[in-house]
């Protein structure tokens, strides 16, 4: 029982990492990784949204769409759920941490279109996860996202002052770094 959930977590964080293995949610991964503090703020916002969205999506699907035989509506219903959770998060962040709100800027509402969020909700349905499994899977995916975002931001802070050859400066070396990180994460395949 406990082993199942921890396997699910490890699987979502490392083996099937949403950013570096499944290539979902690359937009904030490249966009807000310039500074470590911003990355941490974005990670916590995304963690909150992902976990909550996967829980509410599961409830919506199992309790509302399935009984009415409306399984085909799941994509639009999930997008509605995600948009509401993101909007709620935006209000909370704006109230509690105005600096973070300003720094995250457009990337905060853009969590709505972060495909990792919708991806988790849909995968939960496809894999026929139970309620708890969905919650853990969403949380694990969020942890994996946070992990690579923070790691990547830390590396990019160093890259900003590193002696990079002229043609590779800026986003180019960021892409290369992301590729190498992705290769490294592929090494986790077979762990679970």
């Amino acid at each position, binding site marked *: 029982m406990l082993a199942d959930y921890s396997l699910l977590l490890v699987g979502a964080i490392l083996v099937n990492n949403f950013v570096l293995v499944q290539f979902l949610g690359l937009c904030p991964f490249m966009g807000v990784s310039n500074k470590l503090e911003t990355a941490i703020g974005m990670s916590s916002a995304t963690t909150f949204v992902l976990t909550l969205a996967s829980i509410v999506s599961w409830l919506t699907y199992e309790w509302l769409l399935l009984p009415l035989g409306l399984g085909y509506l799941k994509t639009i219903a999930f997008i509605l759920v995600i948009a509401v959770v993101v909007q*709620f998060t935006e209000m909370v962040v*704006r109230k509690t941490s*105005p600096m973070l709100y300003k720094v995250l800027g457009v990337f905060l509402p853009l969590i709505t279109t972060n495909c990792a969020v919708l991806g988790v909700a849909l995968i939960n349905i496809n894999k026929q996860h139970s309620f708890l499994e969905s919650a853990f899977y969403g949380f694990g995916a969020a942890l994996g996202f946070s992990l690579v975002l923070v790691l990547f931001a830390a590396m990019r802070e160093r890259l900003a002052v590193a002696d990079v050859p002229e043609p590779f400066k800026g986003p180019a070396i960021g892409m290369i770094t992301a590729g190498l990180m992705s290769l490294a994460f592929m090494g986790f395949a077979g762990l679970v």
Partner: protein
Amino acid sequence: MIDFIQQTPFLAALGALLLLGLPFGALLGFAAIRFKTEGDPIADQIESLLPQTQCGQCSFPGCRPYAEAIANGEAINKCPPGGEDTIQALADLLDVEVLPLDAEHGEEAIKTVAYIREDECIGCTKCIQACPVDAILGAAKQMHTVIKSECTGCDLCVEPCPVDCIDMLELPTTLQNWSWNLPDANIIASDRQAAPEVGA
């Protein structure tokens, strides 16, 4: 009725989305009131770092307008009374580069406090009107005096005084504002002589 809805998938879909949308809308409406932000919280934080002299040396009519201007991207180095410390604190808050104080707006001066030589005061109330922080007490044709703990040392009362009875005095050194004297700039031998030319 229920049968009818179940047999018309279009109505069922519409109803389901409506059923989803209503509580979500209610939740957001509640959150909009519960987490309402009034004014500009960033400007508030910036203002709390400014020295509140209300002196206008930054070319804005006071500390609050300058704080709002900074929140909208104005340079952070226009506050001479705050000096390096304020610039450093603002740079930390806003996560921007530390800039040297903009000399156009004046230089960082030693903290002073206004002092009215009371036996020369004619009670014209001009300095009271000039004081941005209401630190001067007095009435027409009565002697005025400065509340030392309220005075920000902004200089604005000196100019209007018709009999020049206001002095700006340096704050006496107390345990609260005492600090080490900085060591001399040329303290070791290599400071006093130019560096030898490389490869000469």
